[in-house]
């Protein structure tokens, strides 16, 4: 079951809000790349990964992942401090970036998906790990270039059986990928 908005529409909302957060908070331009509507297992070797959960008639998660060096550059711009390596301040700053991007996505997507709640962010940094969704659900992945590096914003949304039945009458027709 696909969300009542298409992956491309989700990608547009992700793109607009990512650009807004980067320009407003960091003064940095970002360039969106081609969307992958069916991303699954992702190798996150050496990356900083920030996860924020959705709850509501549709549940799932949003994530941002980037290299350690880009995380340091983004955090440095946000906090006006130079970081040479990932530390607690960098992890906190990246969690807040995810909170703003995914949080703004949530408010815009709620027009189609109904009210959504948001978890506080979880931030992971390390080597030799992968991310995947429970039960093989795929992500809608939007790559961006920034400061000569790439980062990715991903969204996974699945119907919440307990709540989606209550709101089924309000849900628009499902659209094909």
């Amino acid at each position, binding site marked *: 079951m696909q969300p009542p908005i298409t992956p491309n529409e989700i990608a547009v909302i992700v793109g607009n809000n990512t650009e807004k957060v980067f320009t407003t908070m960091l003064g940095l331009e970002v360039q969106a790349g081609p969307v992958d509507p069916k991303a699954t297992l992702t190798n996150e070797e050496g990356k900083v990964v920030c996860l924020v959960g959705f709850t509501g008639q549709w549940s799932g998660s949003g994530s941002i992942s980037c290299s350690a060096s880009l995380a340091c550059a983004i955090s440095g711009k946000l906090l006006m401090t130079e970081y040479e390596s990932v530390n607690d301040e960098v992890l906190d700053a990246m969690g807040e970036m995810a909170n703003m991007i995914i*949080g703004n996505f949530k408010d815009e997507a709620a027009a189609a998906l109904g*009210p959504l709640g948001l978890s506080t962010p979880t931030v992971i940094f390390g080597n030799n790990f992968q991310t995947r969704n429970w039960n093989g659900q795929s992500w809608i992945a939007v790559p961006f270039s920034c400061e000569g590096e790439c980062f990715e914003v991903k969204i996974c949304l699945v119907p919440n059986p307990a709540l989606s039945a209550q709101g089924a009458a309000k849900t628009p027709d499902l659209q094909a990928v």
Partner: protein
Amino acid sequence: MALDVLIVDDSAAIRKILHRVLAQTDIALGDVLEAGDGVEALAVLGKRKIGLVLSDINMPNMDGLQFLTSVRANAEWNSMPVIMITTEGSQEKVMDAVQRGAQGYVRKPFTAEQIKEKISSCLAGQ
């Protein structure tokens, strides 16, 4: 008279940014205190007289709306200016915050100018 300010946010990054923005304002600043959630914030208010609160909404333990309700229920803090600075932008959340007594609402991402303008208008209305 110097204004003591309390920043309530579970993100140390946002607390640091707001510290910096406050230092750029024309306000005669006293101490800028920090709390990571509503529970910590109420503890600070119990010990110090605060002239302005900048609070997030989504926080662990006690969120910003619950914190605001507790503040307004206390006669001593009843008229203390509280500005919500949050990712939450839904009309319901904004209305909820205003009905609970928030004097201002700024959505993240924000510019320093937006925060400064909101603080100025909030303090001018006191």
